[in-house]
């Protein structure tokens, strides 16, 4: 058996009620935990994009993707490993203002982690950091061990493929031709 690694599944679907449920039950059935999930409208109106990460083997991820692709409302599903992708996550950290000020200078911290500061109030400061999981995690750990983190949230992964193929737009063009042929 191959060892499980992290796969990123990218799915384009019609913007219909219940698509997410159709996708998640396919993971449930095989007992797979979804690590991260991100859903948003794609560049093309009416089409939604799902980015899902999951630890599994290639044999399983292949079958999962085929099962997803088979659903009527799904335009295209495919999977990648990290080396085929540019990917990013975003994290927000809420820390206590007084504890932060007690640290003295925070310039070093800001530069080291390329932190954006989104809000400063009497009570709290909100940091934003984007990066890979390891990067956002590292800042979380450093803050936790020093001044403490009041709230922390991390988004699911979003990703763009490095390959030359622009799968969706090419595919939509072909589908359009097919529809015209059938209409005639």
């Amino acid at each position, binding site marked *: 058996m191959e060892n499980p690694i992290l796969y990123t599944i990218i799915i384009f679907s019609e913007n219909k009620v*219940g698509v997410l449920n*159709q996708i998640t039950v396919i993971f449930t059935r095989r007992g797979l935990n979804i690590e991260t999930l991100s859903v948003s409208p794609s560049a093309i109106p009416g089409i939604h994009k799902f980015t899902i990460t999951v630890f599994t083997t290639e044999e399983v991820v292949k079958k999962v993707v*085929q099962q997803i692709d*088979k659903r*009527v409302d799904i335009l295209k599903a495919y999977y990648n490993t990290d080396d085929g992708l540019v990917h990013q996550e975003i994290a927000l950290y809420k820390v206590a203002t007084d504890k932060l000020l007690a640290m003295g200078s925070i310039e070093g911290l800001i530069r080291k982690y390329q932190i954006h500061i989104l809000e400063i109030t009497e009570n709290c400061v909100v940091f934003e950091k984007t990066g890979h999981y390891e990067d956002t995690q590292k800042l979380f750990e450093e803050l936790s061990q020093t001044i403490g983190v009041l709230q922390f949230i991390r988004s699911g992964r979003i990703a763009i493929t490095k390959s030359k193929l622009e799968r969706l737009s090419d595919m939509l063009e072909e*589908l359009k031709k097919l529809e015209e042929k*059938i209409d005639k």
Partner: protein
Amino acid sequence: MKITGAKALMESLLQEGVDTIFGYPGGAILPVFDALYDYDKEIKHILARHEQGAVHAAEGYARVSGKVGVSIITSGPAATNAITGISDAMLDSVPLVVITGQVGAGLLGSDAFQEIDVIGITQPITKWAYQIRRAEDVAWAIARAFYIAKSGRPGPVVLDFTKNAQSEEVEFVYKPCKFIRSYIPVPELNLSQIEVAAQIINSAQKPLAIVGHGVIIGEAETELKEFLEKADIPAAWTLLGASAMPTDFHLNMGFIGMHGNVAPNMKTNECDVLIAIGMRFDDRVTGDLNTYAKQAKIIHIDIDAAEINKNVKVDAPILASAKDALPALTKLIKPTKHKEWIASFKEYADLEFEKVIQREIFPQSGKITMGEVIHKVSEATGKNAICVTDVGQNQMAAARYFGFTKSRSLITSGGLGTMGFGLPAAIGAKIAAPNRTVCLFSGDGGFQMTIQELGTIMEHQIGVKMIVLDNQFLGMVRQWQELFYEERYSFTRMKNPDFVAIGKAYNIDGRWVTEREQLDEAIADMLKDDKPYLLAVKVEKKGMIYPMIPAGTTVTNIILGD
């Protein structure tokens, strides 16, 4: 002119050529049944006695006719009762449109009376599930539902129809669905895949084909015959591929899988090329995948991309319908003869006849066996009847011993293995093929799971010939207990009612057969006219279905009995 959503549903069904519906009314579907009242000339409604029965009947109808089976039922418990039938259709690729009533859109999510999340429940067991919340969506949803249910690899569609959408009015315009951009049902034939496969077949010395349900669904029976004959390829069939080839066809080598024939099972592990046509390498066919046909190059024709390499890694996939792939292959393969190879099947066939078949269908003494009843009915109907089965020993014996001359003649629950499927499915089968004899073989267990459908038979005078093979056990489970659980018959004994008396209560003719000498005459009596008939046969209590390849093992572990 504006019409109600309920009437728009009727008009849409007519546009799709629907003339038969299997249903059961109730609160949340009342406007639809009210509209149906005015369509009694165009649409025949068969009132089942339970929603599971309605859906299985629609399945029987669809499996025999190749058309989409339609069922209309109400919300809540009706929808949950239908789940078994819908799942059955999903696993066996049966085209169905099931329309469930739903509470008004304003009440959705409020735990209203008889409200249940039908879409959430049915999404994993349907090809498509959609909630119609506005009358405007009725025509669109029906057009799409029928297109999805019957195209490509068929399957069930559920439309959950809210009560307000049934009553609201809409300007009715119907446009059939021919294209959905996110759904390409029939992949375009890839000629390079055909070439690779043809080359493999042309160099084969010992080819074996396995014929699955896809040949029947794709109506490729003639194309299959031409393909097999040109290269002289022996062929076996899966449970759902039964009747795609006539029983007497000279290249038909029999039934494959756990209770299949010895020769094709053994030859699976001897052939050099295995050609799987519209079948999905189910575990009941393959047994242990690690020892399955390891020596063979495998060609797999399937219309569903998700089936390719799912269970068995294949050397030459052909993603296409059997109807497209087979003629393309036939063109490229060389005419050959495989005389010796085909003759080598006979040794195993003779062994099986001697060890298993002879004593099962021509027993000289002892109690009546399932096999002999099935064989006699098959002979008495000239192998022209439609055979419907329930699930278990009755099903395996019927698949083994019933003969076929026409396609779509074995109607059985393969994937889900649904006890209780038989009786209602036989009702649908007879309605789809009123001019053919429909014989149901059921066990005493399965028959009692949907026995209420005798009421449907009585009301509509549906001429189904019901043969209950009563061994007073849940026979297949008992068989496993005997073989693998030290004969500990945990809750498989059944104390049964007088089935014939129950039939009589429903005004259905019938009789008991307890002795071998009564059998021929009783079968003749059953087949003398086209009326419903219930033949209850007391069969050997501890009958076994042999051969048997124990689950998850390899073909060489085949048990023949002694």
